[in-house]
C-alpha cells in the first residue's frame, strides 16, 4: 500500500527491473515527452520568465532564512481568522494529531470515521492513510491519479501525475476490478476511453463528497501575513474536499510558507506553467481560517517538520526546500524517463526526490545512500526549475556526504555519520590519485609503465573494482602519454 517504503532496494537495483519493463518505459516516454514540449511552449509565452524565476528563488530564500519568524506570523494570522494551528515534529506525531482530530470531528458516530482527501505530497510522505486505516478510519483519495494508485494498491510514481506509469487499459482494468469494493462500482461495459474513465471516477467519488464530514488536504502555499492557504488543482476534487465537509484538516510542510499576499503573484504564474503547462490550472482555492456560513466551520492546520529543519541546517542542501512541487524536473530527466518513479523509493521521485529524500530521511538506508547517484548530472533539471534549485550541486554535495561521512543534523541533533559502506575502494583510489597528481615524477613513471604493459591489461578490473567495470568500458591506454608526446614533438611542430 502507498506510503510504505521500508526496505526499498537501492536505486540501481530497483531501476534495473523498471528498465526491463517495456510497457512502463513506453508509458513514461510518451507522458514525459508530451508534457515537456507543452511546458516549453507555456513558458515561452512569458518574456519575463527568467525574472519570475529569480523572484521565486529570492522569495523562498528570504522565507527560509527567517523561517521561525514567518511561521509565528502565520500561526498568529491563522488563529486570528478562526483556525487552530498544530505543530508536528515528525510523521508519527502528525499522524497522531490528524487521527485525534478526525475522531473528535466524528463524535461517537462510527459511520463518520472516514475522510476525503485532496492530493497531498505531505500526507503521502507521512503515510497518513495507513495510520488512519490502523485506527479504523477510511481515507479516500479523490484525485483521479491518486484514486488509480489507491484502488490498484500501488505506489505513486510522479509528483503531479502519480499514476503516470499506468496506461488507459490498465486503468480501465483497475476500475472494473476494484471500484466495487470501495463504493460505487464502475459502470458496465467501461471502455478505456479517457473521458469515460474520468466519468466513472466522477460518479464513484460523488457519493463520498456529498456525505463527507471531514476533509484532509495539504497546501501549495501559506501566506504568513494573511494566514491564507492556497490549493492549486485541476479536477475540482480539491474544491469538493475544501468546501463541502464540516471540518478541514490541512497538513503542510513548514517550508510552504511565503511572506506576503503579493508573493503569490510570482508562484501563481510559474507553478501552473511549469507543472501542467497551462497558463492557469482550472481551479485554485484560497481560504483564510474559517468563513461564517461558507465552507468548513472548523479548520485545523498541522505544520509538519519531519526532516525539514534537518535539511534547513545544511547550507548547500537547504535550497531543496524552495521546491514548489511542480515536477518539471521529473519530466526532463533522462534517468527518470527510463527508471520510472518507483525506483526512487520515496513519494518524491526524480531529480528533486534524489536530493530531498536523502535529506529528509538521512542517508542511513541503502536506497537513500544510493539516490544522490541516480543522476547523470546533465543539469536539465536545474534549467527547468522555476525556483532555480541547483539540483546537480546538491547531488554532488550529497555524494560527498555519503562517501566521506561527517557532521549532519538528524532529528534536530548534530551527529557525525560514518562514510557509507561500499565506497572504501573509491576513497582509496581517490587518495592514490591525489598523491600521484601531487608527485609528477611518480605520475610519469606510472603512466609509462601503464603504456608499456597495455597489451596485457584485462578488459575488466579484478577484485573490488569489478562491479565498476561491469557496467563500464575501461578506457583504452595510449602507447604514449600526452606529456611524453608533447615533450617529444612540441605539439607536432617537430
Amino acid at each position: 500500500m502507498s506510503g510504505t517504503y521500508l526496505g526499498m532496494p537501492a536505486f540501481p537495483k530497483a531501476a534495473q527491473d523498471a528498465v526491463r519493463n517495456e510497457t512502463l518505459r513506453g508509458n513514461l516516454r510518451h507522458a514525459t515527452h508530451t508534457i515537456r514540449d507543452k511546458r516549453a511552449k507555456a513558458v515561452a509565452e512569458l518574456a519575463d520568465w527568467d525574472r519570475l524565476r529569480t523572484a521565486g528563488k529570492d522569495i523562498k530564500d528570504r522565507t527560509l532564512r527567517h523561517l521561525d519568524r514567518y511561521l509565528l506570523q502565520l500561526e498568529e494570522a491563522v488563529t486570528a481568522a478562526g483556525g487552530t494551528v498544530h505543530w508536528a515534529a515528525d510523521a508519527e506525531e502528525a499522524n497522531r494529531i490528524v487521527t485525534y482530530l478526525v475522531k473528535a470531528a466524528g463524535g461517537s458516530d462510527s459511520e463518520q470515521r472516514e475522510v476525503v482527501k485532496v492530493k497531498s505530497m505531505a500526507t503521502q510522505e507521512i503515510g497518513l492513510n495507513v495510520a488512519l486505516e490502523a485506527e479504523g478510519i477510511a481515507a479516500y483519495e479523490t484525485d483521479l491519479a491518486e484514486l488509480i494508485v489507491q484502488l490498484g494498491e500501488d505506489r505513486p510514481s510522479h509528483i503531479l501525475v502519480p499514476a503516470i506509469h499506468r496506461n488507459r487499459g490498465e486503468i480501465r482494468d483497475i476500475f472494473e476490478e476494484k471500484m466495487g469494493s470501495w463504493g460505487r462500482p464502475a459502470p458496465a461495459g467501461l471502455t478505456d476511453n479517457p473521458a469515460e474513465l474520468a466519468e466513472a471516477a466522477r460518479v464513484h467519488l460523488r457519493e463520498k463528497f456529498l456525505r463527507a464530514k471531514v476533509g484532509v488536504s495539504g497546501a501549495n502555499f501559506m501566506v504568513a501575513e494573511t494566514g491564507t492557504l492556497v490549493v492549486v488543482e485541476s479536477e475540482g476534487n480539491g474544491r469538493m474536499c475544501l468546501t463541502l465537509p464540516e471540518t478541514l484538516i490541512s497538513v503542510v510542510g513548514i517550508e510552504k510558507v511565503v511572506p506576503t499576499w503579493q508573493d503569490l503573484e510570482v508562484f501563481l504564474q510559474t507553478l501552473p506553467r511549469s507543472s501542467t503547462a497551462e497558463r492557469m490550472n482550472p481551479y485554485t482555492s484560497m481560504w483564510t481560517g474559517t468563513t461564517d456560513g461558507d465552507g468548513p466551520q472548523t479548520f485545523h492546520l498541522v505544520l509538519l517538520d519531519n526532516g525539514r529543519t534537518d535539511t534547513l541546517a545544511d547550507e548547500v542542501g537547504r535550497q531543496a526546500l524552495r521546491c514548489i512541487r511542480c515536477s518539471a524536473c521529473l519530466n526532463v530527466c533522462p534517468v527518470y524517463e527510463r527508471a520510472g518513479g518507483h525506483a526512487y523509493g520515496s513519494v518524491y521521485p526524480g531529480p528533486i526526490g534524489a536530493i530531498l529524500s536523502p535529506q529528509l530521511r538521512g542517508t542511513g538506508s541503502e536506497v537513500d545512500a544510493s539516490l544522490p547517484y541516480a543522476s547523470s548530472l546533465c543539469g536539465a533539471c536545474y534549467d527547468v526549475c522555476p525556483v532555480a534549485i541547483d539540483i546537480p550541486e546538491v547531488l554532488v554535495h550529497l555524494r560527498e556526504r555519503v562517501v566521506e561521512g561527517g557532521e549532519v543534523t538528524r532529528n534536530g541533533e548534530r551527529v557525525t555519520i560514518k562514510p557509507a559502506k561500499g565506497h572504501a575502494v573509491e576513497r582509496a583510489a581517490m587518495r592514490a590519485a591525489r598523491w600521484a597528481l601531487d608527485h609528477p615524477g611518480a605520475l610519469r613513471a606510472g603512466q609509462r609503465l601503464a603504456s608499456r604493459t597495455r597489451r596485457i591489461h584485462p578488459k575488466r578490473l579484478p577484485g573490488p573494482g569489478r562491479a565498476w567495470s561491469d557496467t563500464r568500458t575501461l578506457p583504452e591506454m595510449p602507447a604514449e602519454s600526452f606529456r611524453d608526446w608533447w615533450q617529444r614533438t612540441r605539439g607536432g611542430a617537430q
Partner: protein
Amino acid sequence: MSSSSGSKSSGSRERVLARVRRALADVPRDERPQDVRVERGYLRVHGDRTTEQTVELLAENLADYRALVHRVDAAGLPRLLKRLLAAHGSQSVLVPPGLPPRWLAAADPALVPDREADTAYELDTVDSVVTGCAVAIAETGTLVLDGGPDQGRRRITLVPDHHICVVRVPDQVVGSVPEALERLDPGRPQTWISGPSATSDIELNRVEGVHGPRMLEVILVDDRAEGQAPSMR
C-alpha cells in the same frame, strides 16, 4: 494560541521552532528579512493592450480552455440568460443572494436561493447556477470568485454541472495575475476558475469535466454608460 489536541507531546511547537533556529545558525543575528534581496524585475503585465484588446484576450483565453464565451450589452443580458438556460435544458437554477433580480427576470427555470441550511445532496439536484465574479484575468483566462453577494457560497458554483458566470466588462477585467491580486481581499474565500474542471491524469490527455461543473459559460456583459453594443457571439 496553538494547541496540540490530544497528542501526548505538547512541546512540539517549541521543539520545531528551536530546530529552525539552530538550523539557521549561519544567518547573522542582525539580519532582517528585508535584508535578503528579492529581485522583482518581472513585468506587471505582459504586453501593451488597449482596454478593448484586454477584453478580447480574456475571451480568447477563456475559449482556449473550453469555456463557452458570449458577449452582450446590459439590456440583452436577461434574454441571453433565458436562452442559455433553456438550451441546457435546466429545470432549476441556483441564485446567489445579491444577484441583480433583473438578470433572471426572463428565465424559465425555478430559482433556488443559496441557503446555508441546504445540504450538498440538495445542491446536487439543481441543474445550473448563475453568478457574477470579483475579477477576471485576461492573460490566463481566469475568473475569480470571492463570495461576494452576486457569487454566493463556494459550493454553489461547484456541485451543479452547469455554471454561467457574468463578467462586467471592462470594469472587472484586469490584464495579469499581479493586477488581480492587488484588487482582491485575502480575507475572503476565493475560487479561481480557468475553464471547466479537467484532468490530465490518464496518459496526460486533457479531459474536460471531472468533479466541478462540466460546462462553464461566461457572459461578457458590456456595462459601459455609452452602451455601444458589441456583436454577440
